[in-house]
């Protein structure tokens, strides 16, 4: 520190100023980098929180609907049906004894890998990751429709589909087991939901017929204006719905595997439903979704679509901490005949 007087007034020297500025800059840079780090973590946390919140909200709605699932509309009618078998190679109607074809909740030890596994369970897997046994998560894109009943009846339809616009008739490329054309370039889609107007029991079957007709009329490439689906949640990579029932314990899956021929393969047929339904949903956080979709766009330019899909899957696999998985076991309120 200097003392000044009227006869010898001098300011800071250049060296002092430069020193001070340098120190200030270092301090500012340090503070900025700390702030930036903290902000990055904070934003990441916020993204996670938002993804969890959105996933949780969507899941709560699904849980409410499934809980009100009801049987007994008609003895021959499927109270819950999986549609678009070709879109979901995991549900193999023609060979329900295959491990991957179980509609009932798999008993432990039957978790199998398949060509559509999101994460392979051995070192030779498509993503080249070594993972513990049982950690594989087969990627399911379910499409199911069911009746719910509280004070009136409704037809509810949950459907995994593309992110942008809803297309009911997702066309599939010729090779069996390949993903549908609309999802060829990316495994990420959205969950769509349709709820019919509330109706009396006697008229709900007509609602089903109407819905079925609209689905059939829907253009493969057009917007789904007629069916009236709305997007429940974006950035979904996995949606799965299965039956679970304690009667399946003694001989796992026998109840539903027993009736291999005809429509009885579906456990949701008839006047008694399974006691429980298991629902799974996996959602990407918004930042990861942006990275996977727009962020990789340039890198993947000119790359064949199936490879794009694989590359995007691999990118997601490297960022598993930003994908949120929700699983709920839902007891059906009235597994016996509906009112």
């Amino acid at each position: 520190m200097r003392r000044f007087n009227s006869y010898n007034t001098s300011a800071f020297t250049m060296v002092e100023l430069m020193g001070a500025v340098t120190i200030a800059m270092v301090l500012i840079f340090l503070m900025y980098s700390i702030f930036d780090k903290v902000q990055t973590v904070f934003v990441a946390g916020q993204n996670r929180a938002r993804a969890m919140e959105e996933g949780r909200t969507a899941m709560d709605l699904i849980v409410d609907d499934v809980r009100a699932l009801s049987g007994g509309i008609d003895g021959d009618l499927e109270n819950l049906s999986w549609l678009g078998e070709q879109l979901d190679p995991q549900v193999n109607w023609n060979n329900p004894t295959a491990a991957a074809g179980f509609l009932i909740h798999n008993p432990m030890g039957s978790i199998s890998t398949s060509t559509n596994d999101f994460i392979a369970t051995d070192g030779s897997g498509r993503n080249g990751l070594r993972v513990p046994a049982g950690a594989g998560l087969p990627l399911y894109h379910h499409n199911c429709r069911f009746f719910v009943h509280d004070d009136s009846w409704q037809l509810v339809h949950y459907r995994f589909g593309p992110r942008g616009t809803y297309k009911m008739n997702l066309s599939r490329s010729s090779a069996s087991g390949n993903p549908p054309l609309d999802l060829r370039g990316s495994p990420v889609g959205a969950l769509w939901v349709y709820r019919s107007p509330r109706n009396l029991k006697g008229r709900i079957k007509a609602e089903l017929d109407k819905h079925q007709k609209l689905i059939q009329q829907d253009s493969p490439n057009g917007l789904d204006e007629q069916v009236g689906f709305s997007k429940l949640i974006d950035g979904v990579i996995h949606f799965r719905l299965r039956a679970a029932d304690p009667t399946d314990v003694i001989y796992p899956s026998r109840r539903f595997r027993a009736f291999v021929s005809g429509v009885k393969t579906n456990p949701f047929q008839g006047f008694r439903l399974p006691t429980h339904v298991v629902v799974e949903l996996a959602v990407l956080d918004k930042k990861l979704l942006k990275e996977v979709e727009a962020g990789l766009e340039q890198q993947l330019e000119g790359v064949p679509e199936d490879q794009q899909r694989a590359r995007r899957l691999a990118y997601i696999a490297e960022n598993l901490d930003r994908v949120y998985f929700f699983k709920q076991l839902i007891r059906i309120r009235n597994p016996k005949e509906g009112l």
Partner: protein
Amino acid sequence: MKTIHHNSWVRAFTLPEVTLAIGVVALGLVAVFSILPFGLTAQKDNREETIIRYEAQILREFLLAGGLMMDDLGRVDRVELHEPLDLNGSRDPKKAPKFSHVFYNPYRGVPDNQNAGHTLLGHRLEHGTGTKAWYSYTGTPLERARSFWSTDVSGWLLTPVEDAAFRKNGNWGNFALIKAMNGSLFDRFYGAEPGTTEFHFPNREFAMGYILQVQPEVLPNGARVKLTFHWPIFEEVSTALRNGELLKDIVTSSRTGGALLKSGVTIPRFQSQEFSMHSEGTLVPALLESNLTLQERRVLKELRDVAVGQELDLERMQLRLQSYISGKHQYGTNSYPRRFVNNTVTYGVEVRFGNSWIEQAKYPNRTADPSFYPDQVFYDPAFTSYPLGHSGFWLRSGGSEPVQIAWISPDQQPVFGVGDSVRGPYSLVLDPNQLPYFNNAGLYELHSLGPVAARGGNETWDELLAKLTKVTATRPALLRRSGDRFELARHLRLTTHRPASQDERALNQARATGLPLVQSWERVPDEVGAPGLWEIVR
């Protein structure tokens, strides 16, 4: 700040002033930076609490479901029970548990160094002496333990503690170490059961896990189950478990701040969250095979696809359990009669194939058209429309005394036993000379309805149904009656961890003595001190 102007000199900041200013700035910065971690921690806590809430929902439904098969229960690392109810008179006067049971996830395959090829599934610890009785298995019992781990977990976690004083006194209840089912895929992926021989979450420490404490209580108007989640799983927890500490003591250490006895580790304070649920259902011991007679087991197995509370389709039930006449056996459009030969030369089943009688083993259609259905093979009546011989059925031949089938070997050879009460005396009839003389050219009849000595015939369907609606010393009522309608009251739960039934003990013993007829019998574990399973029945 003080600046003094004087004619001859100008005074600048003093050193204390500058120090003070820097101090104030530093304090401000410290305050700002110290808030940031709180924000981040709050975010993390919120996420974890959301996950815990979801875990509570799924576990709540799972525990109320009465034994569901759920693949995700493979994420349960271990389960602990303390002072199980069936150890009558074993309670310590100081209200400390005398026994603890620890069950490991059977998928991990913890090797038993004392028994080559065996896998340790857990142990029963006697606190007074510190001795451990190990559950160590291989083969079918191990496979069963794996298959039914999910339902076992639910049955164990619902074990209530009756003693109110013990409940008040300590950190009571049943405990489980679980990797979260919900949450990020990272946690789900790396938290999966690794299936290796290492204990306690090898390479899984980064995946979110928790200790679940389940406190079930029997109430006059139902049952109450309190679920308490304790997390995160600190490194100290893994260290403590490696040193043989119990989850119960780990939770206590975290609450009290006291050091654990064996490891000397003190567990940091867990975050905890409680959820309480009340069910109008009754908390009761689950129905195990050891509670039932051979006949009751057969009936319940045939009713396996009937839900509890569902009305029985009696016609269908009778079709499944109908009598079988060996001389009228049809396969497709052809007739292939059976006979049972019991003479000094031959003992066993023969099939009339072409124009001659051949041994069952040589019958070309024996797998598609069996004579007796092996117990090892899960019989599925939907695939066969005709009756067959099953364990639990009685074989009658001419005017001879009926004899019950205790077991059917994989090569379709029946083994007979005398006595059908689980608690009563039971012995196998292994000497062919002791078996009834199969007259009428060796043809035989099989009945699921038991013999009634007084009238020399079989019980009627009505008598069987009435019998099943009654409570016996070893089991509750299996059916409920309402007028002419019957509904299923209880389900059968399969588990490795139970006492063997009398017929199984007899077969175990016969196998141990080297009798050729039962050499393919696989020893059934006889866990006399097993804690049993519990369930909530609505």
